[in-house]
């Protein structure tokens, strides 16, 4: 074995010695620099088309052991081009090419296993036309041209399989693409196992690059591992999982890069985890400028495919996956980015998990919102539009869950556990052309809202749909439409008001001019609910199944003038105010509109209200009014143009009323431009006056207040003369023409039932008239006409015309006690009668009558009258020796009385009973003094004058003055003058009777 190894060692040593000797011989004697250099230079001439210098070339073995290598002391390529940063393309102080000797010896192919160029400086240049200064190599001899040189290549083919290059500085300028780069302290290694299997590695301590005027890199540490397929002729490179590292940022690229005619890239990109802040520091200002306002801190990882074509200026990146963690937020994105280098366009789908404070930038400064947002977003928008908040130029949508939301703005607070927000920008199906910017649906868990010091509201789970105009645009008018619905309840409290609403549904549209505060905002709202209970101080209200509509807008001609409307339709309303009022209705519909007129003073002219009310089955109970007020139906409409009562029925105790009619020209009348005209019809089937008197009686009677004034008559009388100046009587307006037609089927007053009470009450031409108001009762058929006029403040007119037919005197005395003052003896009469009374006077402003204008007449006619009571009649009949058959009946009695100024004249009238006949007449003064003459005409003539007052009677005998009127002395003719006068009076009164 030892011998074997000895033999082996000697053999190898011998071989090695031989090789060394052979190499030495080859190097020092065969392949000497003097022999190699010319050859190399000729080869260089053959393959290098530009000016070049090649230093001495020698063959090395020992320094490149075990390989032979050709070493040149410098290789300089000079290819000046106009505009190039240097004429020198390549300056390599030393070039070492490790060659495959055997391949050369066998096949005469010069295979350079490794070409080493240390300390190289290179200046690569491409001009505007796309011509470059590095196309100086001939890849293979041009066989088409005839080679006329004497030199022939000592090898068939030349191939470089490896490259090692170190360069203190490499310069690249591409004028055509406005690209330039400088690499400092760069090491490039390349292996070429064929142009389709090229591996290039590059490590550069500092890379600076600009594109156009924009610096894209400045002192970056760059590492590149680039397996590729290379076509230098077409500058077409196919990268196979190339790795680029810039500082700490690693990027894997797999794809195609073309440098001619223009830069074009089609590759996939994969990054490691990039920190955002240092990344932004690397990016040019043109890109980061738009992101300056963002507070970005986190990391990002990208997997994408990019296409870039400088010839067409198109660039596109398909992001397969982009994960970013920024602050406390995380975003995963996929999508497409177009026109990366210019006006970047995003078509992205994002999954986001963002605490709201991380997106404060998009929240108005006066609003604070906390909570978290999680969900997905989709955006198709330019980055510039996004960062400049011109969101309407893109398309953004999202489906987000918001949790633990706390909202605060000024004094408003809101808390929300959970909310789903679905939105689209723009709004694809706007309900109004101004609402095309945003559509959003918020599905909320129970929400608590509060406005400090005033409003607090809670709503159960609800859905809020919002449409909005562009709130970020220059349009000063904000547009919004909301639709809020809940299957639960809404509870709201404000000051002393509170309301609880079941199943509310609110739709509201609003426009608000943020620049002109004088413009009335537009608000149109409709609120539906199943049930509402509300209270305000001691008011309580309950509405069932109701709809409320309200709107306020500015006028069409003047937007500063508010125009309002409101409408409520409810199935039923129940309301109460403490112990004072309780009311309930059936179906109720109220519609109201108003238009504000600032120039008007009167409230109706100021607001121009229009009101339509339709109420059914109403009931009210007032503490001041014992009975229940029932309102079976009221339907009316009001505007300043007319007030129309279609129907109104009220039932109050035993009474019922119905009022209908129309009143016109209310507005113009208030402006004093026209007459108020109207006709109202008041009907009742039954009216219980006794009940009304009981309900509406004053707390104090008139006698209780007279006692206070009776002790101070002196002061009262002296002030009378000046009281007319201070008095403020009711003056009948002359611009009113109103008529109230009344008809009451049955009226109960005291113990009387009156039927067919009706008449007409009207104001017309400055007169207030009660015209032919009549009724029929047990006591009589009655007709009354009364008039009140006001020609002057201190000259007021009051007159009435009163007729009673088929009068029962006793009933009459009960009804009209004052008639006894005028005809005292009626106290003693019973039976049927006819009564007419007409009187009038002018009054002073304090309603004192002007005595000189007093006019009146009274006519009483009775028949079959019972005179005196039975006991008294019996006493008198015995005294006067009446015939036993004489009945207690007076055939007839007829009295006429006139009132003229202060004179009450009782025209002589006659009474006969049994054998007795008496006549009476005279004057009664307003001071209650009188001057009567009483005649006994049968069985004898006897006359007495009764004068004075009831307290101071003066009776004296007098001649019979009335004999001639009733029973002339000595059988003369009756003087009819008195009778004619009485007939004149009576007939003048009867002609007005209509009953």
């Amino acid at each position: 074995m030892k011998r074997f190894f000895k033999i082996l060692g000697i053999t190898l040593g011998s071989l090695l010695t031989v090789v060394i000797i052979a190499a030495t011989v080859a190097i020092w004697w065969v392949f000497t620099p003097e022999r190699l250099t010319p050859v190399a230079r000729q080869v260089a001439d053959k393959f290098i088309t530009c000016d070049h210098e090649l230093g001495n070339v020698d063959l090395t073995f020992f320094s490149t052991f075990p390989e032979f290598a050709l070493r040149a002391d410098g290789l300089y390529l000079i290819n000046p081009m106009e505009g190039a940063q240097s004429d020198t393309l390549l300056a390599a102080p030393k070039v070492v090419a490790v060659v495959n000797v055997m391949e050369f010896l066998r096949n005469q192919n010069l295979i350079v296993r490794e070409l080493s160029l240390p300390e190289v400086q290179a200046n690569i240049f491409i001009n505007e036309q796309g011509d470059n200064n590095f196309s100086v190599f001939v890849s293979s001899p041009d066989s088409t041209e005839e080679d006329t040189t004497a030199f022939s290549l000592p090898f068939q083919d030349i191939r470089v399989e490896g490259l090692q290059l170190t360069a203190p500085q490499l310069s690249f300028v591409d004028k055509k693409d406005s690209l330039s780069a400088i690499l400092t302290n760069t090491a490039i290694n390349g292996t070429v196992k064929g142009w389709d299997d090229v591996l290039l590695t590059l490590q550069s301590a500092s890379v600076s690059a600009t594109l156009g005027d924009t610096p894209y890199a400045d002192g970056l540490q760059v590492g590149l591992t680039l397996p590729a397929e290379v076509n230098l002729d077409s500058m077409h490179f196919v990268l196979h999982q190339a790795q680029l590292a810039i500082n700490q940022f690693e990027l894997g690229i797999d794809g195609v890069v073309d440098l001619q005619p223009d830069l074009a890239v089609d590759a996939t990109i994969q990054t490691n985890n990039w920190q955002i802040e240092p990344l932004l520091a690397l990016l040019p200002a043109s890109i980061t400028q738009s992101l300056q306002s963002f507070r970005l801190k986190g990391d990002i990882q990208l997997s994408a495919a990019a296409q870039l074509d400088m010839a067409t200026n198109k660039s596109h990146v398909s992001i397969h996956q982009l994960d970013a963690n920024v602050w406390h937020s995380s975003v995963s994105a996929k999508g497409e980015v177009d026109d990366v280098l210019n006006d970047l366009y995003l078509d992205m789908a994002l999954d986001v998990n963002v605490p709201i404070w991380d997106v404060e930038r998009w929240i108005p400064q006066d609003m604070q919102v906390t909570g978290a947002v999680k969900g997905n977003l989709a955006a198709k928008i330019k980055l510039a539009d996004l960062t400049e908040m011109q969101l309407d130029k893109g398309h953004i949508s999202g489906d987000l869950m918001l949790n633990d939301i706390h909202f605060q703005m000024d004094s408003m607070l809101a808390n929300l556990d959970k909310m789903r927000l679905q939105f689209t920008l723009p709004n694809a199906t706007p309900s109004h052309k101004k609402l095309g910017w945003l559509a959003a649906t918020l599905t909320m868990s129970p929400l608590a809202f509060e406005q400090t010091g005033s409003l607090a509201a809670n709503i159960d789970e609800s859905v809020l749909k919002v449409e909005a105009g562009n709130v970020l645009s220059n349009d000063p008018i904000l547009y919004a439409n909301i639709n809020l619905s809940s299957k639960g309840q809404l509870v709201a409290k404000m000051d002393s008001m509170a309301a609880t609403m079941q199943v509310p549904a609110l739709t509201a549209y609003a426009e608000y001019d943020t620049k002109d505060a004088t413009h009335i905002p537009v608000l149109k709202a409709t609120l539906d609910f199943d049930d509402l209970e509300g209270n305000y101080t001691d008011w309580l209200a309950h509405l069932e199944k109701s709809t409320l509509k309200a709107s306020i807008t500015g006028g069409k001609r003047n937007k500063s003038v508010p125009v309002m409307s409101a409408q409520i339709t409810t199935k039923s309303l129940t309301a109460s105010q403490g112990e004072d009022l309780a009311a309930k209705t059936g179906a109720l519909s109220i519609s109201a509109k108003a238009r504000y007129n600032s120039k008007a003073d009167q409230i109706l002219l100021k607001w121009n209200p229009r009101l339509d009310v339709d109420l059914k089955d109403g009931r009210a109970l007032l503490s001041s009014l014992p009975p229940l007020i029932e309102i079976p139906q009221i339907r009316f409409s009001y505007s300043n143009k007319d007030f129309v009562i279609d129907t109104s029925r009220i039932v109050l105790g035993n009474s019922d009323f119905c009022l209908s009619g129309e009143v016109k020209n209310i507005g113009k009348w208030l402006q004093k431009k026209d007459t108020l005209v109207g006709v109202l019809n008041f009907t009742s089937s039954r009216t219980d006056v006794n009940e009304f008197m009981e309900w509406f009686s004053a707390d104090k009677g008139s006698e209780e207040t007279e006692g206070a004034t009776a002790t101070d008559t002196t002061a009262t009388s002296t002030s009378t003369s000046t009281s007319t100046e201070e008095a403020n009587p009711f003056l009948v307006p002359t611009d009113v023409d109103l008529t109230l037609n009344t008809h009451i089927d049955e009226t109960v007053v005291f113990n009387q039932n009156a039927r067919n009470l009706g008449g007409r009450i009207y104001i017309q031409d400055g007169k207030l008239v009660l015209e032919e108001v009549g009724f029929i009762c047990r006591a009589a058929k009655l007709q009354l006409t009364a008039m009140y006029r006001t020609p002057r403040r201190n000259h007021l007119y009051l007159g009435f015309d009163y007729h009673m037919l088929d009068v029962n005197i006793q009933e009459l005395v009960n009804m009209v006690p004052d008639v006894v003052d005028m005809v005292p003896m009626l106290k003693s009469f019973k039976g049927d009668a006819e009564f007419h009374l007409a009187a009038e006077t002018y009054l002073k402003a304090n309603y004192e009558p002007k005595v000189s204008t007093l006019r009146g007449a009274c006519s009483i006619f009775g028949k079959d009258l019972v005179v005196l009571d039975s006991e008294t009649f019996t006493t008198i009949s015995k005294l006067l020796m009446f015939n036993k058959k004489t009945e207690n009946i007076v055939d007839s009695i007829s009295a006429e009385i006139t009132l003229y100024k202060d004179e009450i004249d009782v025209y002589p009238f006659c009474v006969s009973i049994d054998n007795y006949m008496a006549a009476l007449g005279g004057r009664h003064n307003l001071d209650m003094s009188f001057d009567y003459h009483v005649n006994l005409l049968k069985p004898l003539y006897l006359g007495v004058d009764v004068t004075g007052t009831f307290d101071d009677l003066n009776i004296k005998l007098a001649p019979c003055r009335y004999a001639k009127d009733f029973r002339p002395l000595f059988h003369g003719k009756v003087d009819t003058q008195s009778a004619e006068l009485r007939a004149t009076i009576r007939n003048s009164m009867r002609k007005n009777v209509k009953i």
Partner: protein
Amino acid sequence: MKKVCNLLTLGIVLMLVVTGCNKKDEVEILVDSDPLYGYWKKTTGNEYLRFMTEQEDMRDGDYLFGYEWNEDDDVYESDIQKQYHGNGWFKYKMTTKSKSDTILHELHFMDNQGATIPKTYTIVSTSSQSLIYKDNLSTYSFIKVKR
């Protein structure tokens, strides 16, 4: 017997005398109202009368029209309605049944036309400057005025 006959005769004579002394029916004659035309003012106070002249619309059969007012009662001539005969208006005529007994008949109107109120006065004296009439209880004196 004679006494009886004498008494009987006396009675018959008396009856004839009494019945024969009954006044015959007197005929009422309309008296010219010219002396009343014009304005009159009561001698006490500021009460005025106007008896109007005979004009087509100021006559109703035998009656002429007039009106009155009392300024002490804050009633003035302008307050009297001119469109119709109402409060303050009256129609009047003068009649006589004997030369020494001229009767002034007045029918006073009401604004509401509810009744007409008759007043009858006996003319005491009348001249171009004064007018005096009376009723059963009072006497009224006026002086002529120009308005």
